[in-house]
């Protein structure tokens, strides 16, 4: 499998990259980790005329807490998330997700920005972002704009990143004390896309759920927020019955497609199981 010929640039600054994007228009694609794009090119599903490799642009790879946000540079590789002490100690939901993304070699290349910007509901970070109520920073010629994650995913491979723009940063509001989160996906084998995946992030204050985010992976055309589920939990004392109700809503509100991983009925049932399990895990971690 060999990609069709293309031209290649490796700009060393963001503005250079943006200028190249403008110059080449629709024919250009951004090369981040490349582990979604290059296989598509090798299969010749995608044949961009120009690749703009942003791996050489300094300053796009970092994990830091700053101004009330956890800020992650778009070019931060999965392996960095996996090995970051800050992430491990304070945001274990990320560790849950990264260890299930593809495999170690792919995680050495794959970036969080690419995982999100690809706009594939089967990717794992989008659900985590929904749970964490992240904001995505998108940089274009005219500067940087912030897009709430709920307004980011439009459709299949389609996101709020417009022509001429690059996703540059992910901003996550630092959860309050008493918060916890968890992610899990069912997969047929290591490295597979999710049969179903669920991310839960919540804050418990004196037994009451004051904040909750639930994101679903690969059970909808776009990464899906389980809004009704969140609705029944927020502001209430969490009981098993409430968790059951939340799980039921999530299972009903998603829209899974049948494939080799299972039919719609099975996937809904798995969403239900996973919501319950991730709720309990998140509650444990919130303690």
């Amino acid at each position, binding site marked *: 499998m060999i990609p069709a010929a293309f031209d290649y640039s490796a700009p060393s600054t963001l503005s250079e990259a943006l200028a190249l994007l403008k110059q080449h228009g629709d024919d250009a694609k951004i090369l981040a980790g490349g582990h979604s794009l290059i296989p598509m090119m090798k299969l010749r599903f995608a044949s961009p005329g120009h690749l703009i490799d942003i791996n050489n642009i300094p300053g796009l790879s970092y994990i830091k807490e700053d101004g009330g946000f956890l800020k992650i540079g778009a070019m931060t590789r999965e392996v960095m998330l996996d090995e970051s002490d800050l992430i491990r100690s304070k945001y274990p939901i990320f560790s849950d997700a990264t*260890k299930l993304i593809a495999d170690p070699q792919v995680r050495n290349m794959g970036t969080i920005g690419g995982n999100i910007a690809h706009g594939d509901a089967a990717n794992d970070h989008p659900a985590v972002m929904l749970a964490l109520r992240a904001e995505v920073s998108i940089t274009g010629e005219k500067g940087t704009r912030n897009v709430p994650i709920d307004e980011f995913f439009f459709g299949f491979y389609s996101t709020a990143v417009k022509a001429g723009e690059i996703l540059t940063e992910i901003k996550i509001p630092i959860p309050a004390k008493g918060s916890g989160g968890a992610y899990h996906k069912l997969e047929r084998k290591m490295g597979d896309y999710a049969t179903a995946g669920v991310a839960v992030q919540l804050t418990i204050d004196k037994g009451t759920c004051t904040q909750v985010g639930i994101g679903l992976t690969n059970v909808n055309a776009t990464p899906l927020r389980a809004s009704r589920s969140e609705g029944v939990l927020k502001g209430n004392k969490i009981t098993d019955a409430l968790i059951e109700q939340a799980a039921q809503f999530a299972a009903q509100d998603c829209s899974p497609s049948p494939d080799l991983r299972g039919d719609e009925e099975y996937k809904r049932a798995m969403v239900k199981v996973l919501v319950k399990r991730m709720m309990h895990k998140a509650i444990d971690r919130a303690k």
Partner: protein
Amino acid sequence: MEKEITVTLNGVAKTVTVEPRLLLVHLIRENLNQTGTHIGCDTSHCGACTVLLDGKSVKSCTILAVQANGKKISTVEGLLQADGTLAAIQEAFKENHALHCGFCTPGMMMRAVELLQKNPNPTEEQIRWGISGNLCRCTGYNNIVKAVQYAGAKMRGDKLPSTEPIFV
């Protein structure tokens, strides 16, 4: 439009002119004639093409040669120690019968090298997860796990585990 790139392959700097679409694995195998790195699946699932790029294990079938410009590439051919003796991971694979057909072996060893650098004393589970991006169709993985443990012990200077097969 062809590009001139310089890579350091197993310690030796090489300057080559390549098409941007040239895959790193083809650069290594075809342009630089180091055929120890193999191609098994083309879609980044099997890990036979694993090499170290600036010390990190990556799948060279899904990286462009131009992306390696200015970087260090290490392949199985560079594993031998300076005195010509086998590296710990090579000795471990041989002593523990961790290879049959040998096709996945170079990629598997390169992955194990990074795994052991990061975690010199991994548990069986950590090894199994750590090599989950490398498929082996021959060995059933038991002896690969054993070999990685053996190499870890050797690198740590610990007593080496027995390499005799254990039967129930």
